C-alpha cells in the first residue's frame, strides 16, 4: 500500500469519527464510542507511521499530495505536504492523541455527554492534522482556527461551570488577536511571493536572493513578525499567554492533548515551517528569542508558587514553549522541534498523571490537600516520577537531551547570547524546583485530607506507562556530540528541511551540559530541603511554616510595605538565620510574587479593562443613538460637515 499518496486520508479518519459522534452519537452505546473514537485515531497513526517509513525510504524527502485546487488564484488548495517536519508532527498528534483518547475513555467514563466530548476531541484531531499536513498557509490557517474552535468547545465542556465558559471565551478572543496578525502575515506573504504554498514561497524567496534584512526593518521582517505574533497567540507566549492557565478549566485529557502536546505547539511548528523567511530577518529572530526566553523564565517564576496542580503544569507548559521559541529564535529550528517532540511525551504524561491524581482524589486539584499519595497510586507516582525527572533535565531522559541542546545552541549560535543562556539556565533551575515541589506536595509526606485516594483503572494507567517509556527513551534519538553512545537520527532527519548546521563558534559542550545538570540537581535539592523536610515533620510544624511563608507574602504584597519595615527586617533575619535553603525559597517566592502581581494586576487588569471597555463603549452609543429622528439627522449633518470641511479646509 502506498501510504505516501494516502496522507490525505490521515486527517479524514478522525473527521469521520467526529461526524458519526456528533450526528448519531446520542444513539450509540458508550462501549461503541470507546472503541470507535480511539480507533479512528489509531488508524490515522498506522497511516502516519506507514507514510513516514516510506518517506524515510524514498529519495525525495518532500511529498506533496494535492487533492483539489481550492482557490487557484491564491495557490491554495486542499493539498497535503509530508516532509520530515510534518512527519514528526503527525506522529506526535496521532500517537499521543491516541494514548490520550484511550485515557479519556477511562477518565470521562462517568461524565455526561460522552459522545459529544469524543466528537469534539476527534474533530480537534482532524483540524490538528490538517494544520500540520497542510501544504499552504491558508489550509494551515483553517486547521489553526479549527483547533482554536475545538479548544473553545472542549474547555467549555463543563457547561454548568461559568468559569469554564468564560475561560473558553477568553481563549478564543485572545487567539483572535493573534489570528488577525497571522492573516496580515499571510496576506503579506502572498503579496511578496504570489503564492501561499510552502514550497513555492520558499522557492521564491530562495530564487530571488533576498538580502537578509540585517540593517533596516523591511517588509520581510514585518511579515515574519506578523507570523510570530500569530504564533504567540496560539502558543501562549508573552503577552498573549494569558488564556492558557485559565484553559485548565477544561477536562484534564483536553489539557493534555490540546494545551500541552499538540495545539499549543502549532505556533512553534508554524515558525519552523516559515524558517526560510525567518532566516532572512535577524531582527525578528532576535524578538522571537527574546520573547521566548522571557516567557520561559517569567512563566516558570509564576509556576513556583501555584497550588493548583494543573496550573503548575499550565505555567510549566508556557515556560517550555518559551524554550522552543528561544531555540527557534537562535536559528536552531531542529532543536525547537526536538524539544517539541520530547515535551509532548513528558508533558502529556504529567497532565495525564495529574488527571489520574485528580480522578483518584475525587476532583481535588489543590496540592495543599494532597500528600502521601505514593502508596495509594503507585503507577501514577512512578510514571510521573519519570516525567518529572525528564522535564527537570536529568541525564538519560528525554527532556535532558532537548533542553541541553537548546542551552548549547543559545550559548553558541550566532543569533544567541550569553544573557539568554543565563535566562535559560535559571529557568531550568526553576523548572526542576517547581516540578519537584509538585511531586513532594502530591506524593510524599503525609496525607492532608481524608479522601481515600485510589489508583486509576488500566485504561488510564496504560497510556501513562507507554508515555513514561517514551519520556525515558525518545531523547536518545539525538544525543550531544560528545556522547559515546546514542544516535543523531532526529537531527539528520530534520536536516532535510532546515539544512545542516552551520559550524558556529566552538561550544564547550561538556561544561554546558554539566552546568545544566547542576542546575537541575540544585532545583531538586532546594525543593527537597523545603518541602520534604517540612512535610515530613509534624503536621503542626508544616502548617506553621506554611502560614509563615504566606504571611510574608501577604505582608509584602498584600498589606504593603508601609505597615512595618521592622517586620520585614525580622522576616529577612529569620530567613537569613534559617539558612540559605529557606532564603532561596524566599527569593523564589519573591520573584514569583512579582510575577503574580503582574498576573493579578496587569493581566487580570486587562481582562477587567475589557469588561470596562465594553461598559464604556455603551456611553458614546447612548449619546449617538438617542432614538430621536432629529438627533440622527444632526449626526448626518455633522457627517456632511466633516466631508465638506475636508474640501473647504484643504
Amino acid at each position, binding site marked *: 500500500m502506498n501510504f505516501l499518496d494516502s496522507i490525505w486520508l490521515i486527517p479524514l479518519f478522525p473527521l469521520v469519527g467526529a461526524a458519526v459522534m456528533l450526528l448519531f452519537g446520542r444513539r450509540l452505546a458508550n462501549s461503541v464510542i470507546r472503541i470507535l473514537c480511539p480507533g479512528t485515531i489509531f488508524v490515522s497513526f498506522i497511516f502516519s507511521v506507514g507514510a513516514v517509513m516510506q518517506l524515510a525510504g524514498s529519495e525525495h524527502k518532500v511529498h506533496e499530495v494535492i487533492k483539489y485546487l481550492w482557490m487557484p488564484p491564491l495557490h491554495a488548495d486542499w493539498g497535503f505536504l509530508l516532509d520530515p517536519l510534518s512527519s514528526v508532527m503527525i506522529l506526535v498528534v496521532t500517537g499521543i492523541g491516541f494514548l490520550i483518547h484511550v485515557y479519556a475513555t477511562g477518565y470521562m467514563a462517568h461524565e455526561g455527554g460522552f459522545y459529544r466530548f469524543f466528537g469534539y476531541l476527534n474533530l480537534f484531531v482532524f483540524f490538528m492534522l490538517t494544520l500540520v499536513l497542510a501544504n499552504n498557509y491558508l489550509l494551515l490557517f483553517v486547521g489553526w482556527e479549527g483547533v482554536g474552535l475545538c479548544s473553545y468547545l472542549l474547555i467549555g465542556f463543563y457547561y454548568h461551570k461559568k468559569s469554564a465558559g468564560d475561560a473558553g471565551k477568553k481563549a478564543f478572543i485572545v487567539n483572535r488577536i493573534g489570528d488577525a496578525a497571522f492573516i496580515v502575515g499571510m496576506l503579506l506573504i502572498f503579496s511578496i511571493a504570489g503564492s501561499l504554498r510552502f514550497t513555492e514561497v520558499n522557492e521564491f524567496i530562495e530564487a530571488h536572493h533576498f538580502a537578509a534584512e540585517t540593517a533596516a526593518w523591511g517588509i520581510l521582517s514585518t511579515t515574519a513578525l506578523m507570523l510570530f505574533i500569530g504564533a504567540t497567540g496560539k502558543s501562549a507566549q508573552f503577552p498573549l499567554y494569558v488564556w492558557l492557565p485559565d484553559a485548565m478549566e477544561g477536562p484534564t485529557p483536553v489539557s493534555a492533548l490540546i494545551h500541552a502536546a499538540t495545539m499549543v505547539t502549532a505556533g512553534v511548528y508554524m515558525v519552523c515551517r516559515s524558517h526560510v523567511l525567518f532566516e532572512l530577518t535577524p531582527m525578528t529572530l532576535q524578538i522571537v528569542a527574546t520573547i521566548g526566553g522571557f516567557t520561559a523564565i517569567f512563566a516558570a517564576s509564576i509556576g513556583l508558587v501555584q497550588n493548583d496542580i494543573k496550573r503548575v503544569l499550565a505555567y510549566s507548559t508556557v515556560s517550555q514553549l518559551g524554550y522552543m521559541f528561544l531555540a527557534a529564535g537562535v536559528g536552531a529550528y531542529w532543536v525547537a522541534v526536538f524539544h517539541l517532540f520530547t515535551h509532548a511525551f513528558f508533558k502529556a504524561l504529567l497532565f495525564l498523571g495529574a488527571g489520574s491524581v485528580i480522578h483518584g482524589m475525587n476532583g481535588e486539584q489543590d496540592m495543599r490537600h494532597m500528600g502521601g499519595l505514593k502508596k495509594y497510586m503507585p503507577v501514577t507516582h512512578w510514571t510521573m516520577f519519570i516525567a518529572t525527572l525528564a522535564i527537570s533535565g536529568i541525564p538519560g531522559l528525554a527532556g535532558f537531551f532537548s533542553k541541553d541542546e537548546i542551552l548549547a545552541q543559545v550559548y553558541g549560535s550566532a543569533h544567541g547570547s550569553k544573557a539568554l543562556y543565563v535566562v535559560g539556565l535559571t529557568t531550568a533551575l526553576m523548572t526542576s524546583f517547581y516540578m519537584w515541589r509538585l511531586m513532594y506536595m502530591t506524593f510524599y509526606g503525609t496525607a492532608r485530607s481524608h479522601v481515600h485516594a485510589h489508583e486509576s483503572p488500566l485504561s488510564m494507567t496504560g497510556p501513562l506507562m507507554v508515555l513514561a517509556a517514551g519520556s525515558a527513551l525518545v531523547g536518545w534519538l539525538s544525543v550531544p556530540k560528545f556522547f559515546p553512545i546514542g544516535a543523531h537520527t532526529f537531527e539528520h532527519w530534520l536536516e532535510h528541511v532546515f539544512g545542516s548546521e552551520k559550524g558556529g563558534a566552538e561550544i564547550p559542550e561538556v561544561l554546558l551540559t554539566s552546568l545544566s545538570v547542576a542546575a537541575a540537581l540544585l532545583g531538586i535539592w532546594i525543593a527537597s530541603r523545603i518541602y520534604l523536610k517540612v512535610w515530613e515533620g509534624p503536621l503542626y510544624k508544616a502548617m506553621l511554616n506554611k502560614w509563615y511563608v504566606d504571611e510574608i507574602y501577604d505582608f509584602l504584597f498584600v498589606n504593603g510595605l508601609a505597615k512595618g519595615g521592622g517586620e520585614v527586617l525580622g522576616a529577612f533575619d529569620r530567613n537569613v538565620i534559617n539558612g540559605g535553603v529557606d532564603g532561596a525559597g524566599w527569593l523564589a517566592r519573591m520573584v514569583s510574587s512579582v510575577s503574580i502581581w503582574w498576573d493579578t494586576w496587569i493581566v487580570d487588569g486587562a481582562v477587567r479593562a475589557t469588561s470596562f471597555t465594553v461598559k464604556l463603549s455603551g456611553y458614546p452609543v447612548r449619546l449617538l443613538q438617542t432614538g430621536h429622528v432629529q*438627533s440622527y439627522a*444632526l449626526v448626518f449633518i455633522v457627517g456632511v460637515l466633516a466631508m465638506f470641511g475636508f474640501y*473647504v479646509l484643504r
Partner: protein
Amino acid sequence: MLDAVFFYTFALMTLTGAVLTITRKSAVHSAIWLIVSLLGVAGLYLLQQAEFLFAVQIVLYIGGIMVLFLFVIMLVNLDEAAKQRQFNNQRWIALGCAVIVGAEILYVLAKGTASLSLPAPAAAPAAGGNTEQIAVSLFRDYLLPFEAASLLLLAAIVGSVIMAKRRA
C-alpha cells in the same frame, strides 16, 4: 432688466416662504407659506424657460402634494397640535449646523464658480418649445425611467392603501 426684477421678486417669495415655513407655529400656516415658496420656485422655472416644469409644479406640487398635506393636517387634531411646543431641544445646535452647511455649500460654490466651466452643449437643442422637447426626450431617451416610475407609483399606491386602510 425686467428679468432681474422678476428674479428678485420670485427669489424673495421663495426665501420668505421657506423661512416662514420652518418658523410658523401652526402647521397650516407652514403649509401655506410652503405653497408661497413653491410658487416662487415655479416662477424661477418660468424665468429659465422651463414652462413644462412650471405647469407641473403648480398642478402636481401645489395642487396635489400640498393639498394632501393640508388634508392630513386637517385630519389630525389641529388644536392639540398647535398647543405643542414647536421647536425641539437641539434647535440652536441644529440651526448652527444648518447655517454652517449652507455657508459651506455657498463657499464651495463661490470658490468653484470662478472656475465653473460647464461643458459645452453636446448638440444644439432640437427645434420646438420646451414642452415638446421634453415630450420627445421623455418618450424616446427616457422611456424606461418613465415606465419604471409607474412601478414606483404602483408601489406607493399599494403602500399608502395598506397603511391607511382599516384592519380587517
